[in-house]
């Protein structure tokens, strides 16, 4: 017998069930199809303003820095200021997301390059798929528009997030993914990011900047 058959039949023997047990299969199918939400924490719920407030609070609590702009066209200037404030070069790596491409980077004197990172970029900018208020979490999805390497290799990761994309819970992000990719289908990588990278492996002292970015800066657009 193959390992697969061996394992499955051993699972069934231990559970005392047969492989053609229709009610069990039906109950699994039903659960997968319904993908019901479990208990949703009160925190994060409320109108857009409440979600924005909770997102900012939670994000700052895990050392994410936050900037606000009224319109996305103002993002480049704010990002340039952020880079200057940290003595970082005015250079950014980004994917080919249309929402990023058409922004006035040049007017903010930022030098832009496109594509995945090979590890030699200091700063990157991504466009978030969504934010999650309950824990100040960003949702980023892979693709040429926002390559995953840009979320991890550069020292400074800047993420643009529309206030209207801030959801209360992770489950609303799943709903967006189903809408965009189809039920049961996923992009290669979905990153839920909650703060800059860190480690507490040396005497449990919390240190920022382990393998991923040392800084995570979120520019929130609108209110």
């Amino acid at each position, binding site marked *: 017998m193959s390992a697969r058959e061996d394992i499955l039949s051993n699972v069934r023997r231990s559970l005392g069930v047969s492989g053609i047990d229709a009610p069990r299969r039906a109950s699994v199918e039903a659960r997968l199809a319904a993908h019901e939400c479990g208990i949703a924490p009160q925190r994060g719920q409320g109108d857009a303003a409440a979600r924005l407030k909770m997102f900012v609070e939670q994000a700052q609590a895990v050392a994410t820095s936050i900037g606000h702009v009224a319109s996305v066209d103002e993002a480049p200037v704010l990002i340039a200021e952020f880079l200057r404030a940290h003595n970082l070069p005015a250079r950014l790596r980004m994917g080919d997301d249309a929402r990023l491409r058409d922004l006035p980077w040049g007017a903010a004197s930022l030098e832009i390059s496109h594509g995945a990172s090979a590890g030699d970029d200091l700063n990157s900018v991504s466009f978030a798929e969504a934010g999650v208020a309950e824990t100040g979490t960003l949702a980023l999805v892979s693709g040429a528009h926002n390559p995953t390497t840009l979320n991890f290799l550069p020292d400074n990761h800047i993420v643009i997030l529309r206030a209207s994309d801030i959801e209360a819970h992770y489950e609303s992000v799943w709903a967006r993914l189903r809408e965009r990719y189809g039920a049961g289908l996923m992009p290669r990588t979905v990153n839920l990011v909650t703060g800059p990278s860190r480690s507490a492996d040396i005497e449990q002292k919390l240190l920022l900047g382990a*393998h991923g970015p040392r800084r995570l800066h979120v520019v929130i657009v609108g209110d």
Partner: protein
Amino acid sequence: MTVYPSSPQFKKNARAALADGQLQKALGNVRTNFIAKRAAVADRLPEFEALRDQARDLRDHVLAHLDVYLEAYERKVLESGGHVHWVRTAEEASRIIVDLAKSRGARSVAKGKSMVSEEIGLNAALERAGIKAVETDLGEYIIQLRGEAPSHIIAPAVHLNQEDVEAEFRRVHTWLPKDRDLSEPESLLAEARAELRAKFLAADIGVTGANFLVAETGTSIIVTNEGNGDLSQILPRVHVVVASIEKIVPTLEDAASLLRVLARSATGQEMSVYTTLSTGPRRAEDVDGPQEYHVVLVDNGRSNMLGSEFEEMLRCIRCGACMNHCPVYHAVGGHAYGWVYPGPMGAVLTPSLIGVDKAGHLPNASTFCGRCESVCPVRIPLPKLMRHWREREFERHLSPAVSRAFLGLWAFFARRPALYRFATGLTMRALAWAARGKGRFTSLPLASGWTNQRDLPAPQGQTFQAQWKAHQAARRKRP
């Protein structure tokens, strides 16, 4: 490194651990940090206890339908262009991964933290095949340099102090200037980051574990704080996920439900920094990510635990809370347990996976204070399961020896000055709790043969029970 079980020598290991001053200093961090952080974050989320009930029920549902979910999960992985390898044993698991690496001409493998890979002895198997395995989690990297096994399932180097890490980096990183300043933990982290960055970029294959496997979508989920699990899977050409069969969750919603209790129980974080959902290899529209995606589904004894009195152990989501709150773990650390999984969860799981003959004393490594069960996010009755192991021993007619071993161990812990020396520590309160404020143990679980005849003096002080009650009352009062 392969971890050879030294669990039968638990008592000897424990004695050595108690006498190890460096270890005792490091273990102080477990006692203070993890407990306070978890308590604070749990208090901040009013739904936390209800989420634990839900997590328990969800895990039970999965276990009762595991065969059907495994088939559904496999189907989705294949549909998304991935491969699934089913393996019965640790040897089969290592062999599959070594063969995969060889056939791809791999010279080096970058590894994200994975306890199952420790369980199957993957690093040793790769190295025997001439393939370099590089642990990339900071803690795992440090202990790999030292040739040690992890001493904690989420904080593998928790038994070490900063000066131990500095000494190791100076010993190994000989190409760096001798007079560099490594006096701050930040400089140690920066050095590890720089060294490992090059290794990520050079690796041909990335191996990660999985916290969850989602049947609905064929997705594997990993949770890290450092980002090493991500670099391990997006930079190399091949991503291999090694995960045990019970890691299945039905839907993304179910994964979210478990994520809400996982980080809070583990590190006292609201959410870990990186929660990554990986599905198949890179798509046509991707410009990075692995070209191949393989899942190695490991049984290695789990299917036998289903339907047995140890089934509940399979609910475990590997958060580490039980060891963080265990007075025995606090006293002796993880290595004394002698195999991959330490603490209360290890005391139940190790005999299930490697055989009670190889793990005999572990279920006795308990003060029966019940704190592990009180913090377990999926409410595994760990003390009860440890007792089951002893009952099994009775059935096997080994009872006199087991009783002797148990009493011997009890007496060993109870009399050890080093155990009592951390008077403000948990053991004191836990033992006092067991004595129910009477100052005497009039009955000890499974030690009745002894306590029928005499009382064991218990340490004095405010009892854990009193403190716990006060804590619970304070929580209930909150709006």
